[in-house]
């Protein structure tokens, strides 16, 4: 199974990177863009077996390392049965 984790700056605080990207998109002719938040995505392979504890374990990974919850928030998507990422295939 696999976990997909996305980490974004908290909405309440200024995201200078997202703001700069927003301005660049608007200048590039995409006037419909009103806001951008720039974040990160992690694909975490958890081996072939599905585990009921996976979501809790991944949440702990987020709290301990993947996100800094002072300034970031995270979302977890567990994909049951998903295989390894292409890089990790033999």
């Amino acid at each position, binding site marked *: 199974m696999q976990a997909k984790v996305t980490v974004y*700056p908290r909405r309440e*605080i*200024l995201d*200078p990177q997202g703001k*700069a990207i927003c301005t660049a998109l608007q200048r590039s002719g995409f006037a419909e863009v009103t806001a951008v938040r720039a974040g990160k995505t992690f694909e975490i392979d958890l081996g072939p077996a599905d585990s009921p504890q996976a979501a809790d374990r991944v949440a702990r990974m987020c709290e301990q*390392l*993947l996100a*800094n919850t*002072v*300034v970031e928030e995270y979302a977890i998507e567990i994909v049951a049965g998903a295989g390894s990422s292409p890089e990790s295939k033999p």
Partner: protein
Amino acid sequence: MRCGVVLFPGSNCDHDVYHVLKHVLEQDVVYLWHEEATLKSCDFIVLPGGWSYGDYLRGGAMAALSPVMQSVREHAARGGPVLGICNGFQVLTEAHLLPGALRRNRGLRFECRDTYLRVERTDLAYTSQYELGQVLRLPIAHGEGNYEHFSADLDKLEANRQIVFRYVSPAGELDDSWNANGSARAIAGVVNEGGNVLGLMPHPERCAEEVLGNLDGLGLFQGIVQPAARFVGAAR
């Protein structure tokens, strides 16, 4: 005093700190590799600036989980002095030894220039050599020094007097145009509640010797290594 300068892969201000402690202040100094299990009997620990682990994930995030940090944590819990400069400050926040977080600078630029800091309290060993309200000129060199915390926590920091340095104008006035990186409440440096763990973004080690033309940073190290140094936290 026996001082330890922690070396993470990617630290690059380590020798500057070593030099100030060893050759300017004539202390016993050793390096502590990030994989060390002990602090080699050091009394004072410095986490220097640099790009530990290439700033992977977030500045300081990987270093905060390195083996030596467990010993640093125990040292801090005993009331031992720990100073984090620049990336070292980021490591201390990521390790939860100091509150808050350091984000990308407001202007998105790497800022490398002198800043002016106002000393907000002088009852710490770190600031005992300065006057209250004294303005120091210290250089910064960072891309992620924008101090951030929840607003209730910022209020708590103010109430606890944990804000030690703020970015100000050369005249010592709070003025947003002198806030180098957009830090909340112009925070340049904070201390833990015990008064023994201090982090700051500017580099005192880069202005701690006559030949460098600026001695404003020297007092910070002097305050710790002088024999009479004592800690607010230790007295509790």
